[in-house]
């Protein structure tokens, strides 16, 4: 099913749609409160965008510099061309060390690579430790948002899940109680894990170090209690210097959750004595996107999710109505580059309102890229036959004034007299929940001509 069909299903539950819409709007609202407190906010965005432009223009050099410095600090650096290589590399690190259980803090990259099922298939127990990720892991669902993975669930849903899998009280919905249940459960996992995997928010070329941001401290609990720390990183996550963190860390949490900063911003530089740190740098079609002049700016993304929170379509359709791992506006400009056919409907799941572009902390021109992807998708024949035909007809009629006027006059004659069942039926998608516009007696042109004549006669 494409976005339109899944969205229609989502919207059927009107009350729940309102709830989901309000929950995400609240995050956008909190973001606004924070950004308005930073007088130089727009300058920060511009600066971040420029730093990212510099990074992409010198990506090869920064990555090599990063690797050199990381290795000097005792970090093992691995390179993965695609998702499969990423998964294989990680499995090998784990099996070489007889790891049986691995805890994982949030990494959308590992979702993209489908790491969990691969490791599980190969005998490794994987526990997601981000609270939202753990909830959906228990429910066997995918995250519906890149920062708030379980935002589509109500506390009652969580209570049900915890009762089923963690033995907590049936019917519980108190957030404090449920959080305590999760803490107790996860603490046990941290203490018995043989390895910990984290994502990478920012990797610093100058130092060879990297930063992981969490609110729950689950990245830290994981890596400090296990002898092996694996960090999965998309190759575009690199920034040039330590000082650049001063720009990005100010933008990230404000944009993502409306906090000035996440509770923990953990800087990793060298492994602790007798421990190991491995970083897996992943391409998985990022370099291909880099080669697309119109779309390479999508690689600026720092995965804050602000575009999802602000998107009126995302709020009313939910992350699961999008076909790609990363949903919403940013997902819709990344996905067509990966599989144009599969993800075609994503680029059209938008009114091109531009709100995403205005909230993006790194100034990605998201809605312009959506427009450009639409041209490519249409050219490749991946739009429906009916849409293509309708556009051809419009192109034909609208470029011929006499035909245009004729069509208009027909519509104006038919709408007032046609019986309702003819105008409003399954074929009229406009008419499902809206009345058609009332047909005026005269077109503007007819009105203008008669007004002109009348005023000329008066003179």
């Amino acid at each position, binding site marked *: 099913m494409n*976005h*339109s069909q899944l*969205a*229609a299903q989502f*919207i059927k539950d*009107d009350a729940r*749609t309102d709830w989901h*819409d309000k929950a995400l*709007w609240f995050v956008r609202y909190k973001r*606004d409160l924070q*950004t*308005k407190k*930073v*007088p130089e*906010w*727009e300058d920060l965005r511009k600066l971040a965008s420029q730093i990212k432009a510099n990074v992409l223009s010198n990506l090869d050099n920064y990555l090599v510099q990063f690797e050199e410095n990381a290795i000097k600090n005792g970090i093992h650096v691995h390179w993965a061309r695609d998702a499969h290589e990423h998964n294989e590399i990680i499995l090998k690190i784990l099996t070489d060390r007889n790891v049986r259980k691995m805890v994982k803090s949030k990494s959308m990259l590992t979702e993209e690579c489908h790491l969990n099922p691969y490791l599980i298939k190969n005998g490794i127990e994987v526990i997601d430790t981000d609270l939202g990720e753990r909830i959906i892991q228990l429910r066997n669902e995918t995250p519906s948002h890149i920062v708030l993975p379980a935002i589509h669930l109500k506390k009652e849903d969580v209570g049900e899940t915890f009762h089923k899998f963690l033995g907590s009280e049936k019917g519980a919905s108190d957030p404090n109680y449920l959080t305590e249940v999760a803490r107790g459960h996860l603490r046990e996992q941290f203490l018995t894990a043989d390895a910990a995997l984290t994502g990478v928010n920012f990797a610093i070329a100058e130092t060879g170090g990297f930063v992981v941001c969490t609110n729950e401290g689950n990245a830290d609990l994981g890596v400090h209690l296990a002898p092996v720390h694996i960090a999965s990183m998309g190759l575009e996550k690199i920034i040039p210097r330590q000082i650049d963190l001063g720009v990005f860390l100010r933008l990230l949490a404000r944009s993502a959750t409306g906090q000035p900063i996440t509770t923990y911003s953990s800087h990793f530089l060298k492994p602790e004595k007798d421990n190991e740190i491995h970083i897996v740098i992943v391409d998985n079609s990022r370099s291909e996107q880099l080669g697309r002049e119109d779309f390479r700016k999508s690689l600026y993304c720092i995965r804050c999710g602000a575009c999802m929170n*602000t998107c*009126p*379509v995302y709020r*009313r*359709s939910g992350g699961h109505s999008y076909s790609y791992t990363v949903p919403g506006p940013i997902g819709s400009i990344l996905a067509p580059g990966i599989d144009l056919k599969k993800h075609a409907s994503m680029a*059209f*799941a*938008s*009114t*091109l*309102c*531009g*709100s995403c*572009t*205005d*909230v993006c902390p790194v100034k990605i021109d998201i809605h312009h890229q959506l*427009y450009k992807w*639409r*041209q*490519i998708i*249409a050219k490749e024949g991946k*739009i429906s036959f009916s*849409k*293509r035909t*309708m*556009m*051809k007809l*419009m*192109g034909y*009629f*609208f*470029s*011929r*004034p006499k035909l*245009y006027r004729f069509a208009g006059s027909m519509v104006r004659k038919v709408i007032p007299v046609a019986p309702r069942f003819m105008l409003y039926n399954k074929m009229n*998608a*406009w008419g*499902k*929940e*809206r*009345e058609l*516009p009332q047909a005026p007696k005269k077109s503007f042109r007819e009105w*203008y*001509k008669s007004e002109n004549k009348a005023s000329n006669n008066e003179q």
Partner: protein
Amino acid sequence: MNQTCCGQPMANSGCENESKATASLFVENFNDFDYIVGAAPSCVGFVKEHYDILDQNQEVIHVREKIYDITEFLLDVLKIETIDAKFPYKVGLHQSCHSLREMRMGQSSEINGPAFSKQKQILNMVEGLELIELDRTDECCGFGGTFCVTEDAVSAKMGKDRVADHERNGAEVITGGDISCLMHLEGVIRRQQKDIKIVHLVEILNGKTL
């Protein structure tokens, strides 16, 4: 007198090629004028931003430079400071996405910058008109071109939510600069059989009585 359309619907659907003939006709129709004024920021914006699909000859460049939305034209070119019109109603202004985030005729709520709105400025010149405050000042109405039929569920839901916001905040009339948004909101209002009137802001400036 031979005008048809700016060509936006086809281009936004991915069929820029289908817009070219219509866009050329537009240029042919309008290039003889010193100023071109439109009553829809979405159309005016399309000409300004996307007529790069045509070869940039003198006529095309002229049209792209000299096209204005009517509010822009009245304030920035004619520099009017008063309007002789009365509209003693509570009015909700729907600021369209194109008017804000494309034509920058007002500050969008996402941006941390000085507040300004040309449409509010001009409506405040109308006697008796009271602008109400909305909960969400510039959320999209959901029309979105062919989106209104290809994603009709989301489109209608967005329209309904917009209308509800205006209603909740006491609007007797919803106005705006973009005819497509107004047509969409009016479709919702009439289906819901609500009393709220839809009036284009130019009609208000022109002294419309209800």
